[in-house]
């Protein structure tokens, strides 16, 4: 899939911008703080409905302006043309239009445009806190599973309500059953199970691809292993009926991921049952503490490089390599699931990489569909790239095509 036109209005440093990107490679260059990342952020906003940076969504609105618009014309190999638009309001709320029609939910935008973003915040997936890894999973799974998005929103609400009830019960002890604790627990188990199931499945698909990419990036010198660390103990083989997530890769064909994230509605039931049991066992502790003590809000993932936790033991370069391997894997997974190449967004990655990783990255870009890549100077890019790509100079909130 590719963007054929991108329009920004009052988005970050842009008053108005209207560009027609190349179907293949787009190089955005310019000095610091000229608006390169903001263009990638706008594209990613259309794909994920979320801002790239932490903080309030309304911060994307240009200073002293009322609202920000991002609009794109899209061409999809499988579904033809589409016109997507998202408006960010000062209240942090967003409105969405697809082909000119206003949609009741912002989430309707998900699945229209698929992107893989790689930039400096991605180092946090490896080096940061568990919350950073959960955020990574949320964003990636949202792109391929609308059911996950719905379940996640409901779970958050239920968790908040249940925590409040547990706090009340501690402050003002009374019969928890009469107060409705069982029903909040049941809802927590139901939606929580959907989150566990999707995360477990997503990681089981991503891991072999990332491990393969990591081997290529390190010329086989380092081994990566990815583990899901769920916030409860999950039942053993929950996905017996699905294609084996760990195929034999030694001398065999490359791992071939499935085309779909959605499992039968019944597949989450055994997880829900395990979650229910563990919540029941933890009830006294929860009442004593006045809050929910287990669930997907405690999830984490571990990245082991040569058997050692990369968050603690890996060097900066090794951590960056793991992040890059994850992104390569994500790209392949998304490509398989949506059955066409997603749009690749690479923010300021060239300058940080050594020669080996750089050539690996270049090879990746070579095989990709539409790509947007930023850098502070054209010198950061190899001549082949500059010869082939459409060059855009970012300068004080303007973007000019220079070739």
């Amino acid at each position: 899939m590719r963007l054929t036109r991108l329009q920004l209005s009052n988005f970050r440093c842009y008053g108005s911008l209207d560009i027609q990107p190349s179907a293949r490679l787009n190089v955005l260059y310019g000095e610091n703080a000229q608006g390169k990342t903001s263009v990638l952020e706008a594209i990613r906003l259309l794909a994920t409905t979320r801002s790239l940076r932490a903080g309030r969504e309304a911060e994307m609105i240009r200073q002293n302006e009322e609202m920000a618009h991002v609009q794109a014309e899209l061409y999809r190999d499988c579904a033809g043309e589409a016109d997507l638009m998202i408006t960010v309001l000062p209240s942090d709320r967003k409105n969405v239009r697809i082909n000119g029609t206003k949609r009741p939910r912002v989430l309707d935008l998900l699945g229209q445009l698929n992107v893989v973003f790689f930039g400096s915040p991605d180092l946090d997936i490896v080096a940061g806190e568990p919350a950073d890894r959960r955020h990574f999973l949320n964003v990636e799974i949202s792109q391929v599973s609308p059911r996950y998005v719905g379940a996640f929103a409901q779970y958050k609400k239920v968790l908040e309500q249940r925590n409040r009830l547990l706090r009340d019960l501690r402050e003002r002890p009374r019969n928890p059953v009469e107060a409705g604790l069982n029903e909040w627990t049941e809802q927590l188990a139901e939606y929580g199970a959907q989150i566990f199931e999707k995360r477990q499945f997503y990681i089981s698909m991503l891991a072999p691809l990332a491990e393969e990419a990591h081997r290529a990036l390190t010329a086989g010198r380092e081994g990566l292993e990815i583990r899901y660390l769920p916030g409860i103990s999950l039942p053993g083989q929950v996905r017996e009926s699905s294609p084996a997530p760990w195929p034999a890769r030694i001398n065999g064909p490359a791992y071939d991921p499935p085309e779909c994230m959605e499992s039968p509605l019944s597949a989450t039931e055994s997880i829900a049952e395990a979650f229910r049991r563990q919540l029941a066992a933890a009830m006294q502790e929860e009442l004593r503490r006045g809050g929910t003590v287990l669930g997907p809000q405690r999830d984490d993932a571990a990245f082991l490089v040569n058997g050692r936790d990369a968050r603690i033991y890996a060097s900066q370069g090794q951590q960056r390599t793991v992040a890059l391997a994850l992104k390569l894997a994500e790209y392949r997974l998304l490509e398989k699931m949506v059955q066409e190449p997603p749009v690749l967004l690479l923010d300021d990655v060239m300058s940080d990489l050594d020669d080996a990783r750089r050539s690996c990255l270049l090879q990746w870009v070579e095989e990709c569909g539409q790509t947007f890549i930023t850098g502070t100077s054209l010198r950061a890019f190899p001549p082949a790239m500059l010869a082939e790509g459409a060059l855009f100079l970012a300068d004080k909130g303007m973007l000019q095509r220079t070739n």
Partner: protein
Amino acid sequence: MHYARPLAQLVSELERLPGVGPKSAQRMAFHLLRQPQEDARRLAEAIMSVKESIRLCAECSNFTDQELCEVCRDTRRDRALLCVVAETRDLIAMEKTGEYKGMYHVLQGLLSPMENITPDLLKIRELFPRVAGGVQEVILALNPTAEGQTTALYLASRLKPLGIRVTQIAHGLPAGGDMEYADQATLISALQWRREV
């Protein structure tokens, strides 16, 4: 510069209304100020008369100006069917369909610890004597939100042991809606709440 005191007081009272921010409260206050005396008095009287004459129906907790509400007074309705709703406005929405001929029970809210709405604040206790008096089916017509679904579970787990049929309205495609344009969440819920044909 500050508003004259009575004006400031009106603005701050209006601001407390749901969905009214400081800006619209100001606009409303100035609008009322410009209105003829008569109009303002009619509004004030309407507000007072609602407070003085409207109470909860002794039977179903719907808002009414009599002992029993219009639905409960209607002897032609089917007393074996009881539809549980959160608010009077949900009852009105159901009535507008003209399709439902049973009785109602208005909970006057949904369970929500964050808003301090505990089971004893809802009209749940009042439900059981009614159910014991010959009701054959209880239809739960509550929103598909976390609060609505939790309240539905709460009621179902207490009604079912009494041997009463408990059903829940389907949450799915709006009638006349086109499958193709239904959002994913709606389609999924339509699928989840499917029934035999």
